[in-house]
């Protein structure tokens, strides 16, 4: 018979393979591309254990074992980088993760459809623009030299101008708030969809039993979106060490480097700027292991506590 019907599966493998030759041809570019751009760099991880010599290539350069890892452990910056990475990730998870949930719950209460649509349109927009644009907007709006925020501070409240984007103490608030600003509106989509999947009879029954808006939200809507939130949380813990390296890179300045140097930005600095390839690869590998451990732990805890897990 023909390719695609079930009877084919009884035929010998070679015949089936030949019959599908044009299909293999279609997948061939992807196959090669993945080998080159995804699997080859995995082999390149060997750099982390080699004293790379330009003329010898990765394979023939001498082994150094775990030298770079211990070097990293003993750099003076080690603990501050770990601390910054964990603090920034933790703050984003703690404050940035609930933000779209709260926003979705609030938006769900808005009955004026046109108002809701306008707000949604505005709040999704930042998701689509590049972090470079966002960082530039922030720089222009918060600059002490005639930026709109500082002019209002000075003119209306007679307060001194503050260099929000440069002072070290503002770095974490700036990171977390800009993260919420950019992502929270977009993040509501998935929760609003989860809310629409909640059985409306639950609300009717609750209202019959005399429940108010608040207790409906607390006892029906919130538990209704909890599974979605759980999955999103586990995924967020996995991505968090990767997520928004862009953002940190763009908001990083010499004046806040003490609190803004994270693992990823450090890899770029020592690797691409300083050319210490082996060392930088080792730091990158360290980060991958670290973030994998984070996902496994969260998934394990979540499974124990809430029975929600991604595998």
């Amino acid at each position, binding site marked *: 018979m*023909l390719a*695609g019907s079930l009877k084919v599966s009884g035929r010998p493998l070679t015949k089936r393979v030949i019959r599908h030759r044009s*299909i293999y041809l279609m*997948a061939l570019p992807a196959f090669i591309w993945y080998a080159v751009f995804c699997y080859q*760099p995995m082999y390149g991880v060997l750099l982390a254990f080699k004293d790379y010599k330009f003329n010898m290539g990765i394979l023939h350069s001498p082994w150094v074992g775990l030298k770079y890892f211990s070097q990293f452990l003993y750099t003076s910056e080690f603990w501050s980088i770990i601390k910054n990475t964990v603090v920034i990730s933790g703050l984003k998870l703690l404050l940035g993760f609930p933000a779209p949930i709260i926003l979705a719950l609030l938006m769900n209460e808005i009955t004026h459809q046109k108002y809701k649509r306008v707000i949604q349109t505005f709040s999704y927009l930042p998701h689509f623009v590049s*972090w470079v644009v966002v960082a*530039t907007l922030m720089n222009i*709006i918060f600059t002490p030299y005639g930026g709109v925020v500082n002019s209002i501070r000075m003119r209306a409240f007679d307060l001194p101008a503050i260099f929000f984007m440069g002072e070290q103490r503002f770095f974490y608030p700036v990171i977390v708030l800009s993260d919420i600003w950019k992502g929270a509106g977009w993040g509501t*989509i998935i929760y609003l969809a989860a809310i629409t999947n909640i059985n409306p009879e639950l609300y009717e029954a609750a209202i019959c039993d005399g429940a108010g808006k608040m207790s409906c939200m607390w006892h029906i809507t919130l538990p209704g979106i909890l599974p979605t939130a759980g999955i999103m949380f586990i995924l967020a813990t996995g991505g968090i060490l990767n997520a928004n390296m862009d953002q940190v890179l763009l908001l990083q300045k010499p004046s806040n480097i003490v609190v803004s140097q994270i693992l990823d930005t450090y890899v770029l600095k020592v690797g691409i700027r300083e050319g210490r390839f082996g060392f930088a690869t080792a730091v990158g590998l360290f980060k*991958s292991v670290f973030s994998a451990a984070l996902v496994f732990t969260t998934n394990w805890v979540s499974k124990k506590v809430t029975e929600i897990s991604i595998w």
Partner: protein
Amino acid sequence: MVAKAIIYTIVGLFGFATFYPFWYILIASFNSGADFTRGGVYLWPRVFTLANYREAFLSRMIVNALTISVGRTVLGVLLGISFTALFAYAMHIRTLPGRTWLVIYFFITTIVGGGMIPYYFLLRALNLTKSFWIYVIPSIFNFFNMVLMRTFFDGIPSELRESAVVDGANEWRVIARIYLPLSIPVMATVSLFIGVAHWNDWFTGAYYVSNQKLYPAATYLQKILTEAQAAQTIQVGRETAAMFDAINQTTPQSLQMAFVMLLTMPIVAVYPFLQKYYVKGVMVGAIKG
């Protein structure tokens, strides 16, 4: 009632906070730069001018960067969508011997990778760091986009393909005559995904590319931003801002705002489509994910 008013206000404030920065830069970019430094332009241009945009289009660096951006976006979308379509078509054929192994082979790369430095090594070894193709070739495929398309293809009745094959059509004809016309929505979605990613990518240019002439607009904006920040940090921002082109009344800052808008406007232009298709894409991704 009070609770309702509070909710409307909070949500409204969030909407305002996401909208106003764009509006502010927009009016600033249409305001005379020299006038803008005097402050007080918040809601509407005070001294309307197109000088900032004229100045931007006269800048060789900006025009070059925009050309690179447009080029990589157009080429990236065209090549990305064609190869992804073939890839997704192949992966949706259930009878393909070894299909499961192939999917595993592709899927693994979404979990483990080599990291930035081995990747940079690869780009250097391929001589891509000095070439325009660095923007196109390394981003042709994306597993998520493939899954999105494959899911759509799975929804096309397999009888269509089978009867076409009976009638003597080969797989390429099946794609061109049956699948493509039926898959316009998913093609649009994935094109937008790819296009937005290309337009917004500043990182490749900033860290992997060694030739300044190859900077796309997003990377060039990042370079300007870094310089502006350095200037502010050493407290000469005021002087820089005051330094303006007396004839055109533009300042480095107003020029930068026009440039930011040039980078944002294409996104806003496709935004209605983004909203329409992206939301669906996110939902499919979430279900499949």
